[in-house]
């Protein structure tokens, strides 16, 4: 077990190196170059040449790659080609916003997904089970972006209960320290931030959380039902173990393994979903920053954002995998060569 953890951790830099290279290649192989994009902003030829030299785009791909990697090791993500802003600073401003949204979405998903899954698995084949399965399927089949727009339509335009756009109202004066509003409100003694922050967070996190809850519900349900059919459960029943104890100690504990994996995998869907939700709701997170950067071919920014999201995702994946191994005694010993 310890060996496996060390092996996975030792592999982490390799993964990150390959990820960084893939991101570099993906974005430098772009068909429409940043220069043309910039040239349309600043039409004079002299200025264009100056920009190319300044951005290092006149060098060979190899040189650009080495420079990029060298900067990366020093945690320097470069500067935006369009605004000239430091990408590290931009990431620092947007990543906490996305983390807030992802965590809130995860909570929505866990509560609704597990709740529905447990309720449905309690009596498979019942009317409640049927209804919940239908709801789960519908939630899964909703296009995330469209569901967000529907929520805006109903709760913002028709009912006027919740804001449709942004993270905080423009009237609120907020000087970020960590840029995590819950923490900053404590650090700065600003409880007034929490209300507006929450009302802006509700619709985006419902969009992501509910559309991902369907998968969790289905897997929680099937995991519990499958497990309850296994021999050891029957043995426990025959031994006269009380039903509640069988459910908690035998069935749920075994089904939890599968559920754990799903939650880890869903975190990726969550990050992806937050990209969409951020665009729909004009939420200033790193996903929206990345999409904007891709559309304007600002590849220093797109590179930085993709890299940071990938690193985050790799770490979560690793943590899930290790948690899974830790939770399943059968996997604590590696069956390798």
């Amino acid at each position, binding site marked *: 077990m310890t060996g496996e953890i060390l092996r996975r951790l030792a592999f982490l830099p390799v993964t990150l190196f390959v990820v960084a290279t893939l991101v570099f290649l993906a974005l430098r192989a772009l068909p429409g170059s940043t220069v043309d994009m910039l040239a349309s902003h600043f039409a004079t030829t002299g200025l264009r040449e100056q920009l190319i030299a300044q951005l290092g785009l006149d060098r060979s791909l190899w040189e650009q790659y080495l420079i990029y990697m060298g900067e990366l090791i020093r945690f320097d993500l470069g500067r935006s080609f369009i605004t000239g802003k430091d990408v590290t600073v931009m990431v620092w401003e947007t990543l906490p916003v996305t983390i807030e949204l992802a965590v809130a979405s995860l909570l929505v998903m866990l509560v609704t997904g597990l709740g529905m899954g447990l309720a449905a698995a309690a009596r498979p084949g019942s009317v409640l089970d049927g209804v919940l399965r239908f709801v789960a399927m519908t939630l899964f089949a909703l296009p995330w972006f469209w569901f967000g727009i529907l929520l805006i339509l109903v709760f913002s335009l028709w009912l006027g209960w919740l804001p449709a756009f942004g993270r905080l109202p423009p009237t609120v004066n907020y000087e970020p320290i960590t840029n995590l509003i819950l923490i900053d409100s404590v650090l700065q003694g600003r409880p007034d931030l929490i209300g507006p922050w929450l009302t802006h967070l509700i619709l985006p996190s419902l969009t992501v959380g509910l559309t991902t809850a369907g998968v969790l519900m289905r*897997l929680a349900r099937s995991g519990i039902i499958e497990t309850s059919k296994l021999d050891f459960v029957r043995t426990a029943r025959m031994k006269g173990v009380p039903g509640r104890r069988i459910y908690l100690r035998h069935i749920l504990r075994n089904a939890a393994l599968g559920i754990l994996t799903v939650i880890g995998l869903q975190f990726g869907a969550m990050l992806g979903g937050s990209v969409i939700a951020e665009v729909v709701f004009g939420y200033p997170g790193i996903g929206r920053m990345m*999409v904007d950067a891709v559309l304007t071919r600002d590849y220093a920014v797109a590179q930085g954002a993709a890299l940071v999201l990938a690193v985050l995702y790799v770490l979560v994946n690793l943590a899930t995998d290790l948690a899974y191994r830790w939770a399943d005694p059968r996997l604590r010993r590696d069956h390798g*060569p």
Partner: protein
Amino acid sequence: MADQSGSAPTLGAASVGSAGLVRQVLRSLPWVVAALFVLAALLAPVLAAYDPIDAVGGPMQPLFSQGHLLGTDGFGRDQASRILYGLRPMLIVSLGAVALALVLGGAYGLISGVHGGRVDWAMMRGVDILMSFPLILAAILVLAALGASLLNLTLAVAMSQLPIFARLARALAKGEAARDYVMAARAAGFTQAHIMLREVAPNLLRPLLVQATSVVALAALTAAALSYLGLGVRPPTPDLGYMVREGQELIFIAPEQTVLPGILIAVFALAVSFCGDQLADRETGGAGL
């Protein structure tokens, strides 16, 4: 994943078999709906009253106006015709991408799982790297690199789904490889290739196909989402995802322009999901996914 070996067919299927006529109709409904989508997309040139790209009337005509059942958009294009043609990219991308991902990912996972050991470890780290990007971000990067087009959208969605199939096939193959019949085949001296293709692969096919049916919906949704972001089919070519985007800007005056294309995406995804669910049910006897 939960232990798949416990999913042998059981009497649970009886709860489905005892259904009446209503239930039969309900069960065939998703298949009919999915078939209707395919038909409508194929017959779009016949069914559509107007060219989907040309301005054919005054802009922003409401629903049920004369000659334009679903009204016209901001450019005076017929919404009904655009929706019909807009089905095409969604169907092509979702079905094409899943087929591609099933074949490539399934083969990859099979090799990895049956081989085991160092090969398996190295191959799965390869998948890890592919999975180092959340699905939709991987697709965004592919589209950023290749440029937005129908083919590239298919490739991007396929690539984002490849790890799903690779991991599932690998997990299943690994489970199968530990079973007695594989050991017997090894002892009997069959080659690795024979064991993979003739012994293990047939046992993976059904779960993989069930998985494929259930990810067609995901593929359609991913494709629609990418189009929504402006990374799919280039306008003015009609596409449901991008129509939702265009309609969102008119949400104050004509919410139906964003709601209607979205409903169609949702209905298609829902129908295909139910089809997948029925297959999964048949597979596992009622307790399925």
